[in-house]
């Protein structure tokens, strides 16, 4: 049974009713085809109304949906010959991040992504997709290797954030994230990042410095979770819904703020409704992205990466201030 989100309940109820009527007509002589067709029309209108007008909080719940496709599912659908490699060679292997190489359209690429678990057991093993420093360091090791063998890097971002734990701090959480930001800035191969679920704070950013940043329509990218923002701003984590709106964390907001390049459309009702359709939508964007980036020389690539991030931010000049 798929997890049903609050805002889709009317749709689900109506769908069940239609199914019920269809069942009923099968076992009896009464013809309800007209009623059914009316209801089906109403359903498609309802779906349009609801899915076409998602509030930021609706998208947050979709980004967190337990069935939302994860990094490994996209890898399975879009790449061939994927081999996963483990470990950071310094401390351990962080299963909250997966990394490896594969073919993408007959070209070798390095693929790295946050990995949530599907059930409780896997989630515990993968720490709910919240990395420790060794995760970022594993990612960096693979990125350096990608640079050596001149293959593009594709990063999937899907994390609530860096793990707020004692061990993570002791092993240099800050340094590990900072190091990735700085090193990714200088890699001479194309880097494409795709936010597929939650893009939470520094933990997301540590895989998020790229030449192109794409975002699934119902994913989020933010400096802090809506609950965290509400607690900080209004001392009330119950106001998460309001924070989700104020903080501008949806793909549409980020496109407007100039932080991302492309919004990848999702199937009606979210990526989990149709993984294959979702993978196709992503494929089209990835292919184009890679084609564009492969046309650049190494120097051009680095220069453009800098130009891209240099522009992000908003400020003004107050000429009344004495120099």
């Amino acid at each position: 049974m798929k997890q049903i989100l609050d805002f889709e309940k009317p749709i689900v109820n109506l769908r069940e009713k239609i199914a019920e009527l269809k069942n009923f007509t099968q076992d009896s002589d009464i013809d309800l085809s007209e009623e059914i067709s009316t209801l089906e029309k109403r359903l498609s209108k309802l779906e349009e109304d609801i899915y076409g007008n998602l509030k930021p909080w609706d998208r947050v719940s979709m980004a967190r949906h337990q069935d939302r496709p994860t990094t490994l599912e996209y890898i399975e659908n879009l790449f061939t010959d994927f081999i996963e490699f483990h470990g950071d060679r310094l401390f351990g292997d962080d299963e909250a991040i997966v990394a490896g190489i594969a073919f993408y359209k007959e070209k070798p690429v390095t693929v790295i992504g946050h990995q949530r678990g599907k059930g409780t057991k896997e989630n515990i093993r993968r720490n709910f997709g919240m990395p420790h420093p060794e995760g970022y360091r594993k990612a960096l090791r693979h990125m350096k290797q990608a640079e050596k063998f001149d293959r593009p890097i594709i990063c999937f971002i899907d994390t609530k954030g860096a793990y707020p734990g004692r061990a993570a701090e002791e092993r240099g959480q800050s340094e590990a994230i900072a190091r990735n930001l700085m090193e990714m800035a200088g890699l001479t191969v194309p880097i494409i990042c795709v936010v597929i679920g939650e893009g939470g704070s520094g933990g997301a950013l540590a895989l998020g410095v790229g030449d192109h940043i794409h975002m699934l329509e119902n994913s989020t990218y933010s400096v802090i979770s809506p609950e965290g923002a509400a607690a900080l701003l209004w001392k009330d984590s119950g106001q998460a819904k309001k924070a989700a709106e104020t903080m501008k964390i949806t793909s549409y907001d980020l496109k407007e703020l100039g932080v991302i390049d492309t919004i990848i459309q999702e199937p009606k009702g979210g990526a989990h409704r149709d993984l294959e359709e979702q993978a196709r939508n992503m494929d089209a964007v990835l292919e184009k992205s890679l084609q564009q980036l492969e046309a650049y020389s190494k120097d051009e690539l680095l220069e453009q990466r800098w130009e891209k991030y240099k522009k992000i931010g908003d400020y003004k000049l107050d000429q009344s201030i004495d120099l």
Partner: protein
Amino acid sequence: MLKDFFGKRKKYASIPSEQAKTDVPEGLMQKCKGCHKIYYRKEMKKNVNVCPNCNYHHTLTAWERIDSLFDENSFQEWDKQLITSNPLDFPDYEEKMKKDREKTGLNEGVVTGEGTIEGHRVAFAVMDSTFRMGSMGSVVGEKIARAIENAKDESIPFIIFTASGGARMQEGVLSLMQMTKTSIAIKRFSKAGGLMVSVMTHPTTGGVSASFASLGDYNFAEPGALIGFAGRRIIEQTIREKLPDDFQTAEFQLKHGQLDKVVHRHQLKHVLSTLLQLHQKGGKSLETNS
């Protein structure tokens, strides 16, 4: 030894009498945050806000820091006119910023520029925790990135003093992106051979700790400074255990291999100028030449 002072802080703590508390005239006197002894503010100032009794390093404003380190009249401020706009249309943000500017006399949470330390010309960025907790929004990120670029163009070292609670909530994801912007600037500077020194002061946390603060060729910290990524309360809630008192202090970070050195404020100028001397082409030893 200096490094022992913080461990001993409690031993020397003395609680002033009720009489003493009521006798302290506002503004003239100052109570030490470490040992709670009462000092003349002037006396504490002369000691660069370090407690003469327990060595507690009190906050310095950006300008106090600059005055304490740079040669007289050697500094020049950059990008003074950059102020925040309100990218998320966050309620009351601009009004609050205006008030903060009036209250602190600063235009943002960081002062950038160039100056000389014992004759060595450097570019600098000094964050100020008295301005909105030194939080990093677009202006802070932009000023720091520009200062690093200037250092690169001028081929001079870059020194940053961090003091920040992290990203500025009111600018949302744009604050987060300042981590990237500054880190790319550092990469470019580093590739060009530039020397960067980071001095982490109290507090250096969140997105600032996880970007430029940790990216110096040398990373220093002041004694007792709080340094870390996630907040203590959130960690305690997550792992359901109480953290030790010294968790995320400069000394803790040093012990865990995250810092090059913890430097007492009185020694800072000397350490920095020696370091600059050591990185100067044809630099001569200060000791043998003095």
